[in-house]
């Protein structure tokens, strides 16, 4: 476990070091890419100068709204679908093919409907995220042992109480897997749609910097998206591992 972590960090450090060397020696030109160390310095300058803070707050805020609403509605939907086997039967094939849909193709339509504000990009992020939550939650709900439901009946729990006190707590590790996807998908949805068409936000700023050969803005923003996404993902991963460890299982 410890050894694997050390090796993983070593591999990452070696890759970043290799990239740094390629940039420093001029194999990769300065117009193409900044050395990773410069990106860090530029990111620090960018954050302290505060010029793009509004864009960062907007994008992360929109992704947050998309993610939280996808998780909450996804949980509700999963509990409802789980309780209705015939609906489940009808929907399962749709869930299986859902991610074959290029969600961004709906973006122009959403702009026509809702204007060029935050809503269309939030909807894209939400739509990408919610089905991952539903599918993973359903997977967890399917695994609840029957004897726990019998126990619930003995203490006369209502259906809502069974979901809240038995099936969802049991399914928590699976739900967290869905939440990890939801975080990634909502960031992809929001930032991706800002790339395509928007008036502000991180995706817009990255595209704008790209068009203006402004590597000192573009790369730090990309780095920041990476850091935020990976940090959230590992935080949820750590929670997931703790829950599983309590149940005597490895993640």
């Amino acid at each position, binding site marked *: 476990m410890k050894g694997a972590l050390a090796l993983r960090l070593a591999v990452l450090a070696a890759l970043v070091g290799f990239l740094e060397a390629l940039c420093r020696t001029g194999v990769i030109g300065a117009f193409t890419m900044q050395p990773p160390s410069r990106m860090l310095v530029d990111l620090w300058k960018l954050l302290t100068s505060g010029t793009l803070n509004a864009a960062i707050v907007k994008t992360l805020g929109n992704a947050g709204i998309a993610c939280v609403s996808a998780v909450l509605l996804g949980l509700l939907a999963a509990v409802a679908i789980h309780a209705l086997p015939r609906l489940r039967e009808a929907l399962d094939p749709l869930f299986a093919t859902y991610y074959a849909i290029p969600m961004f193709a709906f973006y122009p339509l959403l702009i026509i409907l809702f204007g060029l504000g935050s809503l269309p990009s939030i909807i894209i992020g939400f739509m990408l995220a919610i089905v991952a939550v539903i599918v993973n939650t359903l997977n967890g709900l399917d695994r609840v042992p029957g*004897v726990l439901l*019998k*126990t619930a009946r003995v203490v006369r729990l209502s259906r809502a*109480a069974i979901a809240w*006190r038995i099936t969802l707590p049991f399914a928590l590790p699976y739900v967290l897997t869905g939440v990890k996807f939801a975080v990634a998908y909502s960031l992809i949805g929001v930032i991706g749609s800002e790339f395509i068409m928007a008036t502000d936000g991180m995706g817009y700023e990255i595209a704008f910097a790209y068009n203006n050969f402004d590597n000192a803005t573009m790369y730090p923003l990309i780095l920041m998206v990476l850091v935020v996404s990976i940090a959230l993902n590992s935080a949820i991963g750590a929670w997931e591992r703790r*829950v599983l460890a*309590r*149940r005597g299982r490895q993640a």
Partner: protein
Amino acid sequence: MVFQEDASFPWLTVADNIAFGLRQIGLSGAERDRRVAEAIEMMGLGGFATSYPAQLSGGMRQRVCIARTLVMQPRLILLDEPFGALDQQTRLIMGEELLRLWRRTGATVLLITHALDEAAMLADRIGVMSARPGRILDTVETGWPAERDSRVVERPEFGAITARLWGRLRTESMQAIGRGGVA
């Protein structure tokens, strides 16, 4: 009501598992804590209140489930093959604990089992049931004193009781496995 399978909630500590039903009936903090502490002590789970079921043995988890039932202070306890998943030694020990518990709580216990010796040792009265449709074929009064433990297996009456139970069950079992008429 206690089941054959492990019905402990893996995401709750031992204490929270035991308090589950009490929360449901909305029992207040102090009284709930008192009953949970008492059940933990009674079931020999002292020191494990904050452990999770995954850290316990199968026998201990089953004791958690029995404790969860006990704190509700039922007058009738239904046990559906509660020791079926346990090894023979643990079964006998759990049987003794059940006898102690029964004497302390005064609750009526209805226990379903396939083990003849378990029935003969634990019960005051044994109903022998037929295969489908389930009917009572015979009722056996064991006549044990209330203050008994697993050592009743040494008594001559014990052999007589199990023999009578098996005599009743043999034909039934033969039929159940499809050899009706041969016996």
